[in-house]
C-alpha cells in the first residue's frame, strides 16, 4: 500500500495542486457556484447526493461494460477474419476505418430512431467507438508473428488452423490488451454521448439535465465519477493482462 502511494505520488501531487489552486481561485474571485463550483462544494454534493449519483453511475457502468464486451467480441472476430483471409481484409478494412470517420454524435441520434430509447443504442454507441482500437491492435498482433516461427510450424507439419490457434492467437494477446486499454477509456465517452442523445438516467443524462438547472456541482461530480470509472477499469485491464499474459513484457523487450 505504501509502495503504491509512493509510486503514484506524482499524480496525487498534481491533483492536490490543481484542487488547491481551484479552491483558492473560486474563493478569492468570489466566482458563483453555477459558473464554477469550488472543489469543496463538489465534494459536499457527492456526499449529500451519493445515493442518486450511485444510481446513475450504475446505469452508465452497465452501458460501458456491456458495450465494451460487445466491442471485444466483434473486434476479435473481425481481426481474426481479416488475418485469415486477404479477401476479407480488402473487403472490410476500408469500412472499419470509415466507421470511425463518421462522427458518433451524428450516428447516435439515428440509432435512437432506428432501435429505440432503451439500453441497446447506448451499448451500440459504446461498441462502435471502442471496437476500432481492438481490431487494429489485434490485427497488428496477429500479423507481427516472426516469419521464422511460421517456418518452424510448417517444418513441424503445422497446418494453417494450427498456426492460427497455437501462434497467432497467443502472440496477439499483448497487442489485444493494448487495444483494450484504449478501448475502455473511450468507452466511457461513448456511454456519455449515448446518454446525451436521449435517455432518462445515467451520468451523461445527469450532466445534461443539471447544466440548465445551474446545478454545476452535479456536472462536476459526474465528471469526477466518470474519471474514476475510467481509471479503475483501465487499472483492472492492466491487472488482467498481468494475470493472463505474464510473458507480455518479456516479449516486447
Amino acid at each position: 500500500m505504501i509502495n503504491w502511494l509512493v509510486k503514484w505520488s506524482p499524480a496525487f501531487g498534481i491533483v492536490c495542486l490543481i484542487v488547491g489552486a481551484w479552491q483558492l481561485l473560486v474563493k478569492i474571485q468570489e466566482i458563483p457556484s453555477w459558473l464554477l463550483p469550488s472543489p469543496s462544494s463538489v465534494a459536499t454534493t457527492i456526499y449529500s447526493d451519493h445515493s442518486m449519483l450511485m444510481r446513475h453511475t450504475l446505469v452508465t457502468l452497465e452501458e460501458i461494460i456491456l458495450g465494451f464486451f460487445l466491442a471485444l467480441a466483434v473486434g476479435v472476430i473481425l481481426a481474426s477474419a481479416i488475418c485469415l483471409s486477404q479477401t476479407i481484409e480488402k473487403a472490410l478494412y476500408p469500412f472499419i476505418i470509415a466507421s470511425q470517420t463518421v462522427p458518433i454524435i451524428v450516428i447516435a441520434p439515428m440509432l435512437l430512431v432506428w432501435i429505440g430509447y432503451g439500453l441497446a443504442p447506448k451499448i451500440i454507441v459504446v461498441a462502435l467507438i471502442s471496437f476500432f482500437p481492438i481490431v487494429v491492435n489485434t490485427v497488428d498482433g496477429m500479423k507481427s508473428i516472426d516469419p521464422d516461427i511460421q517456418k518452424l510450424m510448417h517444418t513441424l507439419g503445422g497446418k494453417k488452423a494450427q498456426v492460427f490457434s497455437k501462434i497467432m492467437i497467443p502472440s496477439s494477446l499483448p497487442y489485444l490488451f493494448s487495444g483494450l486499454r484504449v478501448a475502455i477509456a473511450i468507452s466511457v465517452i461513448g456511454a456519455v454521448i449515448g446518454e446525451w442523445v436521449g435517455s432518462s438516467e445515467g451520468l451523461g443524462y445527469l450532466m445534461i439535465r443539471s447544466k440548465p438547472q445551474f446545478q454545476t456541482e452535479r456536472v462536476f461530480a459526474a465528471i469526477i465519477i466518470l474519471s474514476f470509472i475510467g481509471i479503475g477499469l483501465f487499472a483492472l485491464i492492466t491487472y488482467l493482462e498481468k494475470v493472463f499474459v505474464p510473458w507480455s513484457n518479456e516479449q516486447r523487450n
Partner: protein
Amino acid sequence: MEKIVDNHISIVGLEKTIYQDGNPLKILDGVDLAIQKSEIISVLGPSGCGKSTLLNIIAGLDEPDGGDININGLDSDSRLGSVGYMQQKDLLLPWRSVKDNVILGLEIRGVSKRKSYQMVEPHFQSFGLSGFESNYPHTLSGGMKQRASFLRTVITEPDILLLDEPFSALDALNRSRLQMWLLDLLEKIQRTVLLVTHDVDEAIMLSDRIYVMTSRPGRINSVEKVPYPRPRDREIVNDSSFVELKSKILSFLWDQD
C-alpha cells in the same frame, strides 16, 4: 544407380532463382550433395551463398527450379513435417513453458498432452533441462534455450536433422560446450545431419565431410573429408592435420568475394 539407393539425401544439379524487384537473382547454380545415413555433413560458405535456401528446399519449404532432390524417395509435400529443421534462433514460444515448447511438434501431430509429456520426460536430464521443465524461456540461459529447441526438433524423431547455424548466438565457451554435447547426443541417436555454419572449426569438429560453397550463385567448390572418427575429443583442434584442413578450407573461402 546403386549409389543413389545408398544415399539418404541425394541432390543433383539443384538450381534456384529468385526475383528481387523483378530482376532474376540466381541463388543456387547446380548444387550436388550425396549424404549417407547417419552421416554428419557441414555446408560452409560465404554469407549469401544460398545455404539457407538449400536447407529450405531440403525441408520442403521451397521448391527448386531445376535439378533433382531425393530423400528416401519423398517429394516436397511429405518432406514437410518429416525433416527436422532447427533454425538459427531458438524460436521458443514465450507464452509456453519449456515442457510445453518441447512438445509443440507432438501436439501438432495430434499426440495427447499426457502422452507427449511422458515422451519428453526422460530426455530433460540429458538435455540439461531437468528442474527447468516449468520455466518460461526468458528465464533460461542461451545454451539451455538452444538445447530446448534441439529437444523440440528431435522429439518427433525425424531421421534427418537440418541445423542452420544453431550455435551462432552463443559465446565461444558455451558454443564449444554445446558442440561437444551435440556430438555426444548424435552418438546416441544416430541421425543424418546437415549443418550449415560460418565457423570452420565447428564444421571440422562436428562433421564427417564438409561441403564448401562458392559465393552467389552457390555451387559446391570442394568436398573435404574430416579424418577423425567419432566419438571425438575436444583436443583434436590442436592436431596438425586439423590446422592443415582448416587452412585449406579457409583458402577456398578467401578465394571467394
